[in-house]
Protein backbone atom coordinates (compact mmCIF):
# COMPACT_ATOMS: atom_id res chain seq x y z
CA UNK A 1 0.00 0.00 0.00
CA UNK A 2 1.33 3.47 -0.83
CA UNK A 3 2.07 5.69 2.09
CA UNK A 4 -0.09 8.77 2.62
CA UNK A 5 1.65 11.33 4.81
CA UNK A 6 -0.24 14.34 6.11
CA UNK A 7 2.07 16.58 8.13
CA UNK A 8 0.84 19.51 10.23
CA UNK A 9 -1.80 20.38 7.67
CA UNK A 10 -4.10 23.34 8.05
CA UNK A 11 -6.56 24.68 5.53
CA UNK A 12 -8.19 28.09 5.32
CA UNK A 13 -10.84 28.96 2.72
CA UNK A 14 -10.94 32.62 1.70
CA UNK A 15 -8.76 35.44 2.99
CA UNK A 16 -8.92 38.52 5.20
CA UNK A 17 -12.19 38.99 7.04
CA UNK A 18 -13.79 36.12 5.14
CA UNK A 19 -11.06 33.66 6.08
CA UNK A 20 -12.35 30.41 7.51
CA UNK A 21 -10.18 27.74 9.04
CA UNK A 22 -11.68 24.37 8.14
CA UNK A 23 -8.74 22.13 9.00
CA UNK A 24 -6.15 22.76 11.71
CA UNK A 25 -2.96 20.91 12.53
CA UNK A 26 -3.83 17.53 11.09
CA UNK A 27 -0.99 15.02 11.18
CA UNK A 28 -1.57 11.44 10.18
CA UNK A 29 0.21 8.68 8.27
CA UNK A 30 -1.98 6.17 6.46
CA UNK A 31 -0.87 2.86 5.00
CA UNK A 32 -3.81 0.60 5.85
CA UNK A 33 -5.87 -0.94 3.09
CA UNK A 34 -9.18 0.39 4.41
CA UNK A 35 -9.46 3.78 6.10
CA UNK A 36 -12.78 5.41 7.03
CA UNK A 37 -13.40 9.10 7.69
CA UNK A 38 -16.42 10.26 9.69
CA UNK A 39 -17.59 13.45 11.37
CA UNK A 40 -20.39 16.00 11.49
CA UNK A 41 -21.48 18.10 8.51
CA UNK A 42 -18.90 20.80 7.92
CA UNK A 43 -16.24 19.13 10.07
CA UNK A 44 -13.74 19.12 7.19
CA UNK A 45 -14.00 15.57 5.82
CA UNK A 46 -14.37 16.55 2.18
CA UNK A 47 -11.59 19.09 2.47
CA UNK A 48 -9.36 16.40 3.98
CA UNK A 49 -10.24 13.96 1.19
CA UNK A 50 -9.48 16.58 -1.48
CA UNK A 51 -6.09 17.26 0.09
CA UNK A 52 -5.05 13.69 -0.69
CA UNK A 53 -5.14 14.15 -4.48
CA UNK A 54 -4.20 17.81 -4.57
CA UNK A 55 -7.66 19.11 -5.51
CA UNK A 56 -7.24 21.23 -2.38
CA UNK A 57 -3.74 22.37 -1.42
CA UNK A 58 -2.84 22.77 2.24
CA UNK A 59 -2.55 26.35 3.51
CA UNK A 60 0.10 25.11 5.91
CA UNK A 61 1.95 21.82 6.26
CA UNK A 62 2.26 19.29 3.48
CA UNK A 63 0.70 16.17 2.02
CA UNK A 64 2.67 13.42 0.30
CA UNK A 65 1.47 10.26 -1.40
CA UNK A 66 4.09 7.63 -2.08
CA UNK A 67 6.68 10.35 -1.63
CA UNK A 68 5.08 12.76 -4.12
CA UNK A 69 4.15 16.19 -2.78
CA UNK A 70 0.62 17.23 -3.77
CA UNK A 71 1.75 20.83 -4.17
CA UNK A 72 4.67 20.34 -6.55
CA UNK A 73 3.75 17.00 -8.13
CA UNK A 74 -0.03 17.28 -8.37
CA UNK A 75 -0.38 15.43 -11.67
CA UNK A 76 1.72 12.52 -10.48
CA UNK A 77 -0.33 12.35 -7.30
CA UNK A 78 -3.62 12.38 -9.23
CA UNK A 79 -2.45 9.44 -11.36
CA UNK A 80 -1.84 7.56 -8.13
CA UNK A 81 -5.00 8.63 -6.33
CA UNK A 82 -8.40 8.03 -7.93
CA UNK A 83 -11.29 10.11 -6.60
CA UNK A 84 -14.97 9.22 -6.48
CA UNK A 85 -17.42 12.05 -5.69
CA UNK A 86 -20.90 12.03 -4.18
CA UNK A 87 -22.84 13.07 -7.25
CA UNK A 88 -22.19 10.73 -10.16
CA UNK A 89 -23.76 13.16 -12.63
CA UNK A 90 -20.98 15.65 -12.03
CA UNK A 91 -18.18 13.14 -12.61
CA UNK A 92 -19.50 11.50 -15.76
CA UNK A 93 -18.01 13.71 -18.44
CA UNK A 94 -18.74 11.83 -21.66
CA UNK A 95 -22.16 11.27 -23.26
CA UNK A 96 -22.09 7.47 -23.36
CA UNK A 97 -21.04 4.79 -20.88
CA UNK A 98 -18.08 3.29 -22.78
CA UNK A 99 -16.79 6.70 -23.83
CA UNK A 100 -16.80 7.87 -20.24
CA UNK A 101 -14.78 4.87 -19.09
CA UNK A 102 -12.35 5.45 -21.97
CA UNK A 103 -11.86 9.12 -21.09
CA UNK A 104 -9.06 8.77 -18.52
CA UNK A 105 -7.20 6.21 -20.62
CA UNK A 106 -7.32 8.41 -23.71
CA UNK A 107 -6.01 11.35 -21.70
CA UNK A 108 -3.10 9.13 -20.65
CA UNK A 109 -2.33 8.26 -24.26
CA UNK A 110 -3.15 4.56 -24.01
CA UNK A 111 -3.31 3.07 -27.55
CA UNK A 112 -6.81 2.69 -29.05
CA UNK A 113 -7.11 -1.12 -29.06
CA UNK A 114 -5.81 -1.34 -25.52
CA UNK A 115 -8.38 1.28 -24.48
CA UNK A 116 -11.16 -0.79 -26.05
CA UNK A 117 -10.01 -3.98 -24.32
CA UNK A 118 -9.63 -2.39 -20.90
CA UNK A 119 -12.96 -0.59 -21.17
CA UNK A 120 -14.73 -3.81 -22.11
CA UNK A 121 -13.25 -5.77 -19.21
CA UNK A 122 -14.01 -3.02 -16.66
CA UNK A 123 -17.59 -2.66 -17.91
CA UNK A 124 -18.06 -6.41 -17.50
CA UNK A 125 -16.56 -6.34 -14.00
CA UNK A 126 -18.98 -3.60 -12.95
CA UNK A 127 -22.03 -5.20 -14.54
CA UNK A 128 -22.36 -2.46 -17.15
CA UNK A 129 -21.42 -4.46 -20.24
CA UNK A 130 -24.98 -4.35 -21.56
CA UNK A 131 -24.89 -0.54 -21.47
CA UNK A 132 -21.63 0.26 -23.28
CA UNK A 133 -23.22 2.44 -25.96
CA UNK A 134 -26.10 3.74 -23.85
CA UNK A 135 -26.30 7.44 -23.02
CA UNK A 136 -25.04 7.90 -19.46
CA UNK A 137 -28.01 10.03 -18.44
CA UNK A 138 -30.43 7.13 -18.96
CA UNK A 139 -28.73 4.99 -16.30
CA UNK A 140 -30.22 4.69 -12.81
CA UNK A 141 -28.53 6.51 -9.93
CA UNK A 142 -26.86 3.32 -8.75
CA UNK A 143 -25.63 2.47 -12.24
CA UNK A 144 -24.30 6.00 -12.64
CA UNK A 145 -22.25 5.67 -9.47
CA UNK A 146 -20.97 2.27 -10.67
CA UNK A 147 -20.00 3.93 -13.95
CA UNK A 148 -18.22 6.74 -12.11
CA UNK A 149 -16.32 4.15 -10.09
CA UNK A 150 -15.52 2.06 -13.19
CA UNK A 151 -14.21 5.18 -14.96
CA UNK A 152 -11.85 5.87 -12.08
CA UNK A 153 -10.69 2.29 -11.52
CA UNK A 154 -9.97 1.62 -15.22
CA UNK A 155 -6.93 3.90 -14.91
CA UNK A 156 -5.60 1.62 -12.14
CA UNK A 157 -4.91 4.09 -9.34
CA UNK A 158 -3.06 2.77 -6.29
CA UNK A 159 -5.39 4.57 -3.90
CA UNK A 160 -9.10 5.26 -4.16
CA UNK A 161 -10.53 8.20 -2.22
CA UNK A 162 -14.33 8.30 -2.04
CA UNK A 163 -16.34 11.23 -0.69
CA UNK A 164 -19.76 9.91 0.38
CA UNK A 165 -20.29 7.74 -2.71
CA UNK A 166 -23.47 6.18 -1.30
CA UNK A 167 -25.20 9.28 0.10
CA UNK A 168 -27.48 9.80 -2.91
CA UNK A 169 -28.29 6.10 -3.38
CA UNK A 170 -31.04 3.87 -2.03
CA UNK A 171 -30.19 0.99 0.30
CA UNK A 172 -29.82 -1.62 -2.42
CA UNK A 173 -27.54 0.50 -4.61
CA UNK A 174 -25.53 1.65 -1.61
CA UNK A 175 -25.00 -2.00 -0.70
CA UNK A 176 -23.95 -2.78 -4.27
CA UNK A 177 -21.33 0.00 -4.23
CA UNK A 178 -20.13 -1.12 -0.79
CA UNK A 179 -19.80 -4.68 -2.09
CA UNK A 180 -17.77 -3.55 -5.11
CA UNK A 181 -15.52 -1.40 -2.97
CA UNK A 182 -15.02 -4.23 -0.47
CA UNK A 183 -13.67 -6.39 -3.29
CA UNK A 184 -11.07 -3.88 -4.45
CA UNK A 185 -7.45 -4.86 -3.78
CA UNK A 186 -6.42 -1.18 -3.74
CA UNK A 187 -6.06 1.10 -0.75
CA UNK A 188 -9.39 2.84 -0.10
CA UNK A 189 -10.16 5.93 1.96
CA UNK A 190 -13.91 6.30 2.40
CA UNK A 191 -15.65 9.39 3.74
CA UNK A 192 -19.16 8.44 4.77
CA UNK A 193 -22.17 8.99 7.01
CA UNK A 194 -23.14 5.33 6.52
CA UNK A 195 -21.34 4.03 9.59
CA UNK A 196 -22.16 0.37 8.97
CA UNK A 197 -19.96 0.43 5.88
CA UNK A 198 -16.93 0.76 8.16
CA UNK A 199 -17.43 -2.43 10.18
CA UNK A 200 -14.45 -4.31 8.81
CA UNK A 201 -12.23 -1.33 8.07
CA UNK A 202 -8.68 -1.25 9.44
CA UNK A 203 -8.80 2.28 10.78
CA UNK A 204 -11.31 5.11 11.15
CA UNK A 205 -10.58 8.84 11.56
CA UNK A 206 -13.09 11.13 13.27
CA UNK A 207 -13.08 14.84 12.45
CA UNK A 208 -14.67 17.53 14.56
CA UNK A 209 -14.59 21.22 13.66
CA UNK A 210 -11.52 20.81 11.50
CA UNK A 211 -9.54 18.71 13.94
CA UNK A 212 -8.68 15.05 13.87
CA UNK A 213 -10.13 14.08 17.25
CA UNK A 214 -10.03 10.30 17.11
CA UNK A 215 -7.98 7.76 15.19
CA UNK A 216 -8.87 4.21 16.11
CA UNK A 217 -10.40 0.89 15.14
CA UNK A 218 -13.95 1.20 13.69
CA UNK A 219 -15.77 0.18 16.89
CA UNK A 220 -14.01 2.69 19.12
CA UNK A 221 -14.03 5.48 16.52
CA UNK A 222 -17.76 5.14 15.81
CA UNK A 223 -18.46 5.12 19.56
CA UNK A 224 -16.41 8.31 19.92
CA UNK A 225 -18.32 9.93 17.06
CA UNK A 226 -21.66 8.94 18.58
CA UNK A 227 -20.77 10.40 21.98
CA UNK A 228 -19.58 13.56 20.23
CA UNK A 229 -22.92 13.88 18.43
CA UNK A 230 -24.84 13.25 21.65
CA UNK A 231 -22.87 15.87 23.57
CA UNK A 232 -23.07 18.81 21.14
CA UNK A 233 -26.52 20.34 20.74
Amino acid at each position, binding site marked *: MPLIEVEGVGHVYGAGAAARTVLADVTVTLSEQRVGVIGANGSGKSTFARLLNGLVLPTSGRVRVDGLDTRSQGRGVRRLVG*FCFTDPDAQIVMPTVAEDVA*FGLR*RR*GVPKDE*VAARVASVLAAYGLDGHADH*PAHLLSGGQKQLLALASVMVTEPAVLVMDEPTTLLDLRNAARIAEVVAGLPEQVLLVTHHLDLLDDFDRVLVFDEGRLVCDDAPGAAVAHYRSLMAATP
Partner: protein
Amino acid sequence: MTPLGLFLPGTSPLHRAPAGLKLLGLVAAGVVSVLLDEPWQVLVALGVVTVLYGVAGISLRVAVAQVRPLLWIALGTAVFHVLVNGPARAFVVVGVLAVLVLLAALVTLSTRTTDLVDAIVAVCRPLRRVGVDPDRVGLLLALGIRCVPVVVGLAQEVRDAQRARGLGASPRAFVVPLIVRSLRHADALGEALVARGAEDPVPDEG
Protein backbone atom coordinates in the same frame (compact mmCIF):
# COMPACT_ATOMS: atom_id res chain seq x y z
CA MET B 1 -37.91 7.87 -25.87
CA THR B 2 -34.98 8.60 -28.15
CA PRO B 3 -33.55 11.95 -27.17
CA LEU B 4 -32.40 14.16 -29.97
CA GLY B 5 -29.29 13.17 -31.85
CA LEU B 6 -28.00 10.39 -29.65
CA PHE B 7 -25.82 7.65 -30.99
CA LEU B 8 -27.70 4.45 -31.89
CA PRO B 9 -25.19 1.62 -32.12
CA GLY B 10 -25.20 -0.38 -35.37
CA THR B 11 -23.04 -2.02 -38.01
CA SER B 12 -24.39 -0.42 -41.19
CA PRO B 13 -22.04 1.07 -43.81
CA LEU B 14 -23.05 4.46 -42.46
CA HIS B 15 -22.00 3.47 -38.96
CA ARG B 16 -18.67 2.21 -40.25
CA ALA B 17 -17.91 5.23 -42.47
CA PRO B 18 -15.24 7.54 -41.00
CA ALA B 19 -16.68 10.41 -38.95
CA GLY B 20 -14.69 12.95 -40.96
CA LEU B 21 -16.22 11.73 -44.19
CA LYS B 22 -19.73 12.00 -42.77
CA LEU B 23 -19.07 15.54 -41.54
CA LEU B 24 -17.71 16.43 -44.98
CA GLY B 25 -20.85 14.97 -46.54
CA LEU B 26 -22.93 17.12 -44.23
CA VAL B 27 -21.05 20.24 -45.26
CA ALA B 28 -21.48 19.28 -48.94
CA ALA B 29 -25.20 18.77 -48.40
CA GLY B 30 -25.38 22.24 -46.86
CA VAL B 31 -23.76 23.74 -49.95
CA VAL B 32 -25.98 21.80 -52.34
CA SER B 33 -29.11 22.71 -50.39
CA VAL B 34 -28.62 26.34 -51.35
CA LEU B 35 -29.06 25.30 -54.99
CA LEU B 36 -32.35 23.48 -54.42
CA ASP B 37 -35.04 25.59 -55.99
CA GLU B 38 -37.80 23.36 -57.33
CA PRO B 39 -40.22 21.24 -55.32
CA TRP B 40 -39.25 18.11 -57.29
CA GLN B 41 -35.60 18.62 -56.35
CA VAL B 42 -36.57 18.80 -52.68
CA LEU B 43 -38.64 15.65 -53.11
CA VAL B 44 -35.60 13.88 -54.54
CA ALA B 45 -33.48 15.11 -51.61
CA LEU B 46 -36.07 13.84 -49.13
CA GLY B 47 -36.05 10.53 -50.99
CA VAL B 48 -32.27 10.29 -50.70
CA VAL B 49 -32.47 11.04 -46.97
CA THR B 50 -35.09 8.32 -46.52
CA VAL B 51 -32.86 5.82 -48.31
CA LEU B 52 -29.89 6.82 -46.12
CA TYR B 53 -31.95 6.23 -42.96
CA GLY B 54 -32.89 2.85 -44.41
CA VAL B 55 -29.23 2.02 -45.05
CA ALA B 56 -28.36 3.01 -41.47
CA GLY B 57 -31.18 0.82 -40.24
CA ILE B 58 -32.77 3.66 -38.31
CA SER B 59 -36.56 3.58 -38.13
CA LEU B 60 -38.82 6.28 -39.50
CA ARG B 61 -40.19 6.84 -36.02
CA VAL B 62 -36.75 7.91 -34.80
CA ALA B 63 -36.28 10.05 -37.91
CA VAL B 64 -39.56 11.85 -37.31
CA ALA B 65 -38.58 12.41 -33.67
CA GLN B 66 -35.51 14.32 -34.88
CA VAL B 67 -37.58 16.95 -36.69
CA ARG B 68 -40.45 17.14 -34.21
CA PRO B 69 -38.85 19.94 -32.11
CA LEU B 70 -38.80 22.02 -35.30
CA LEU B 71 -42.52 21.61 -35.89
CA TRP B 72 -43.58 25.09 -34.77
CA ILE B 73 -40.73 26.89 -36.49
CA ALA B 74 -41.42 24.92 -39.67
CA LEU B 75 -45.14 25.68 -39.44
CA GLY B 76 -44.53 29.40 -38.93
CA THR B 77 -42.07 29.48 -41.82
CA ALA B 78 -44.51 27.58 -44.02
CA VAL B 79 -47.42 29.92 -43.27
CA PHE B 80 -45.24 32.96 -43.89
CA HIS B 81 -44.02 31.65 -47.25
CA VAL B 82 -47.45 30.47 -48.38
CA LEU B 83 -48.78 33.97 -47.77
CA VAL B 84 -45.80 35.82 -49.26
CA ASN B 85 -44.27 33.54 -51.90
CA GLY B 86 -46.84 30.86 -52.56
CA PRO B 87 -47.09 27.18 -51.61
CA ALA B 88 -44.29 25.92 -53.90
CA ARG B 89 -41.70 28.19 -52.27
CA ALA B 90 -43.03 27.26 -48.83
CA PHE B 91 -42.55 23.58 -49.63
CA VAL B 92 -38.97 24.17 -50.85
CA VAL B 93 -37.95 26.19 -47.77
CA VAL B 94 -39.46 23.86 -45.20
CA GLY B 95 -38.34 20.79 -47.17
CA VAL B 96 -34.72 21.94 -47.29
CA LEU B 97 -34.81 22.68 -43.57
CA ALA B 98 -36.11 19.19 -42.88
CA VAL B 99 -33.50 17.59 -45.16
CA LEU B 100 -30.62 19.35 -43.40
CA VAL B 101 -31.87 18.60 -39.91
CA LEU B 102 -32.48 14.96 -40.83
CA LEU B 103 -28.99 14.64 -42.29
CA ALA B 104 -27.32 16.25 -39.29
CA ALA B 105 -29.31 13.95 -37.02
CA LEU B 106 -28.30 10.96 -39.15
CA VAL B 107 -24.63 11.79 -38.65
CA THR B 108 -24.97 12.02 -34.87
CA LEU B 109 -27.22 8.95 -34.72
CA SER B 110 -24.69 6.83 -36.60
CA THR B 111 -21.46 8.19 -35.09
CA ARG B 112 -19.99 7.87 -31.60
CA THR B 113 -19.45 11.25 -29.95
CA THR B 114 -15.80 10.40 -29.43
CA ASP B 115 -15.31 9.76 -33.16
CA LEU B 116 -17.17 12.93 -34.09
CA VAL B 117 -15.10 14.93 -31.64
CA ASP B 118 -11.87 13.32 -32.90
CA ALA B 119 -12.76 14.33 -36.46
CA ILE B 120 -13.42 17.90 -35.40
CA VAL B 121 -10.20 17.94 -33.38
CA ALA B 122 -8.32 16.78 -36.50
CA VAL B 123 -9.90 19.60 -38.53
CA CYS B 124 -8.88 22.08 -35.82
CA ARG B 125 -5.25 20.87 -35.75
CA PRO B 126 -3.95 23.57 -38.10
CA LEU B 127 -5.48 26.19 -35.77
CA ARG B 128 -2.88 25.24 -33.19
CA ARG B 129 -0.60 27.78 -34.87
CA VAL B 130 -2.99 30.60 -34.02
CA GLY B 131 -3.21 29.51 -30.41
CA VAL B 132 -6.28 27.25 -30.51
CA ASP B 133 -5.84 24.01 -28.54
CA PRO B 134 -7.73 21.40 -30.61
CA ASP B 135 -8.06 19.01 -27.69
CA ARG B 136 -9.66 21.71 -25.59
CA VAL B 137 -12.15 22.27 -28.42
CA GLY B 138 -12.86 18.53 -28.53
CA LEU B 139 -13.31 18.27 -24.76
CA LEU B 140 -15.58 21.29 -24.79
CA LEU B 141 -17.76 19.74 -27.47
CA ALA B 142 -18.08 16.43 -25.65
CA LEU B 143 -18.85 18.20 -22.37
CA GLY B 144 -21.47 20.31 -24.12
CA ILE B 145 -23.22 17.24 -25.46
CA ARG B 146 -23.05 15.56 -22.07
CA CYS B 147 -24.40 18.64 -20.28
CA VAL B 148 -27.63 18.95 -22.25
CA PRO B 149 -29.43 16.10 -20.43
CA VAL B 150 -27.89 17.18 -17.12
CA VAL B 151 -29.23 20.72 -17.38
CA VAL B 152 -32.61 19.39 -18.54
CA GLY B 153 -32.59 17.26 -15.36
CA LEU B 154 -31.70 20.28 -13.20
CA ALA B 155 -34.52 22.29 -14.78
CA GLN B 156 -36.93 19.46 -13.98
CA GLU B 157 -35.76 19.43 -10.34
CA VAL B 158 -36.22 23.19 -10.00
CA ARG B 159 -39.70 23.00 -11.50
CA ASP B 160 -40.65 20.16 -9.14
CA ALA B 161 -39.35 22.09 -6.14
CA GLN B 162 -41.36 25.11 -7.28
CA ARG B 163 -44.53 23.04 -7.61
CA ALA B 164 -43.96 21.36 -4.25
CA ARG B 165 -43.92 24.77 -2.59
CA GLY B 166 -47.06 25.79 -4.45
CA LEU B 167 -45.32 28.48 -6.48
CA GLY B 168 -46.81 29.32 -9.84
CA ALA B 169 -44.82 29.53 -13.04
CA SER B 170 -42.76 32.54 -11.99
CA PRO B 171 -39.86 32.91 -14.44
CA ARG B 172 -37.61 34.49 -11.81
CA ALA B 173 -38.26 31.70 -9.30
CA PHE B 174 -37.29 29.29 -12.06
CA VAL B 175 -34.28 30.93 -13.68
CA VAL B 176 -32.38 31.97 -10.56
CA PRO B 177 -32.25 28.53 -8.90
CA LEU B 178 -31.54 26.92 -12.27
CA ILE B 179 -28.51 29.18 -12.74
CA VAL B 180 -27.35 28.51 -9.18
CA ARG B 181 -27.64 24.76 -9.68
CA SER B 182 -25.93 24.90 -13.06
CA LEU B 183 -23.01 26.85 -11.61
CA ARG B 184 -22.71 24.38 -8.75
CA HIS B 185 -22.73 21.57 -11.28
CA ALA B 186 -20.06 23.29 -13.38
CA ASP B 187 -17.91 23.64 -10.28
CA ALA B 188 -18.22 19.95 -9.42
CA LEU B 189 -17.61 18.98 -13.04
CA GLY B 190 -14.44 21.06 -13.13
CA GLU B 191 -13.19 19.30 -10.02
CA ALA B 192 -13.99 15.89 -11.48
CA LEU B 193 -12.20 16.76 -14.72
CA VAL B 194 -9.03 17.67 -12.84
CA ALA B 195 -9.33 14.54 -10.68
CA ARG B 196 -9.67 12.43 -13.83
CA GLY B 197 -6.61 13.84 -15.55
CA ALA B 198 -8.14 16.39 -17.95
CA GLU B 199 -5.23 18.74 -17.30
CA ASP B 200 -2.78 16.22 -18.74
CA PRO B 201 -1.62 17.22 -22.19
CA VAL B 202 -3.07 14.72 -24.66
CA PRO B 203 -0.44 12.70 -26.48
CA ASP B 204 -0.89 12.86 -30.24
CA GLU B 205 -1.97 9.28 -30.87
CA GLY B 206 -4.51 7.93 -28.41
